[in-house]
């Protein structure tokens, strides 16, 4: 297993990607030191009780009325590289509203806030690793990375996984978005096939008649690094 621990090289972006300006002063310039996974890396936090209690998989129910925009279902499975389901893990998402504005005080984009949309969701995966959110399709928004720069529509995802080594924070994109090919953040992923794995697929099965379009997006966490807590706890 130790020989495997760097097998995912090439999947993830490099630290420094000059086209994404914020990496220039933030990316470490020394090579990362290989860390053979030990107990601290192969174990991880269980979902905190308050996170589970606050589960809110329907982002369209925050206000007195319905948020504006195109209602969508985003669903899929969280699995590892061996296709084993990652059950009972917290999936957290945040996103802009349909106009491309986050309900965050630092977002200065001149687009309207939606009093009925906060853009924050959370759910627990089921026994098959499945998750499902109901939300609004986020709008594209401008950012100051370069002249006339626009982020493609995206939803931010955060997963703790089963082990510290599995922690994943990423973004889901939408199929057919013309901005995707011009986005330095997506382009930082060196392998085009890996980049495409961040793009959801429109799904007739997930689409609900007279109600919402459905998009399928599976999340694959690295495998081979999780130790069941009972094994990590030693005798007793």
């Amino acid at each position: 297993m130790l020989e495997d621990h760097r097998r995912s090289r090439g999947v993830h972006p490099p630290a420094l990607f000059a086209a994404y300006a914020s990496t220039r002063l933030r990316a470490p310039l020394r090579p990362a030191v290989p860390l053979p996974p030990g107990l601290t890396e192969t174990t991880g936090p269980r979902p905190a009780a308050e996170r589970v209690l606050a589960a809110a998989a329907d982002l369209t129910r925050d206000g007195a009325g319905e948020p504006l925009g195109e209602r969508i279902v985003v669903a899929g499975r969280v699995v590892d590289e061996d296709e084993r389901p990652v059950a009972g893990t917290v999936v957290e998402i945040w996103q802009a509203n349909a106009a491309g504005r986050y309900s965050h005080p630092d977002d200065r984009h001149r687009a309207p806030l939606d009093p009925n949309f906060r853009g924050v969701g959370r759910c627990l995966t089921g026994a098959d690793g499945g998750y499902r959110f109901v939300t609004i399709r986020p709008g594209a928004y401008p950012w100051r990375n370069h002249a006339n720069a626009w982020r493609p529509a995206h939803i931010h995802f955060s997963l703790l996984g089963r082990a510290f080594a599995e922690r994943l924070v990423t973004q889901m994109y939408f199929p057919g978005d013309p901005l995707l090919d011009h986005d330095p953040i997506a382009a930082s992923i060196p392998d085009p096939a890996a980049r495409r794995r961040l793009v959801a697929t429109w799904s007739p099965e997930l689409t609900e008649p007279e109600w919402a379009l459905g998009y399928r997006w599976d999340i694959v966490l690295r495998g081979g690094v999780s130790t069941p807590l009972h094994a990590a706890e030693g005798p007793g």
Partner: protein
Amino acid sequence: MTRLETPSQTVGPFFALALPWAAGAEVVPPGTPGAVRIRGRVLDGAGEPVADALVETWQAGPDGRFDQAGFGGFAQCATGADGGWEILTLKPGPLPAPGGGVEAPHLDVSVLARGLLVRLVTRIYFPDEAGANAADPVLSALDDPAARATLVAVAEGGDLRFDIHLQGDDETVFFEL
């Protein structure tokens, strides 16, 4: 392997909408006997504070076991305008190392921020564990004493200080898992 891993992307500037949680920076409540406050700043390559980072820590309990009743072992703290973060926790016990030997007490750390396309991973070791640190296989694999020193917290007025230099002469050692 039948499925290929999902690539990482930056957490962006607005993660505070969803992460972290109130009181997420306290592994143990204030007043817990033996509680230690670990604080520090996240600084960029120009020495400027990184005010939009999220620091996460994960660790064993004092007995070297993980996620026991009353001790979750996980903390999250967003940095403030000065790049500062702090957590309240208990010092973990030593652990068996994967290749044999003993790992000195340590916390694993993730740093997430705008401009970090993949989270950075580092470790916090304890300054009062010179002997255990000298025998720790991860620390002792680092030849440069200055590099090793970036991983050891500094005692400061009863607290521990652990600054994270993302880039530059004092760059913290980051790990590839």
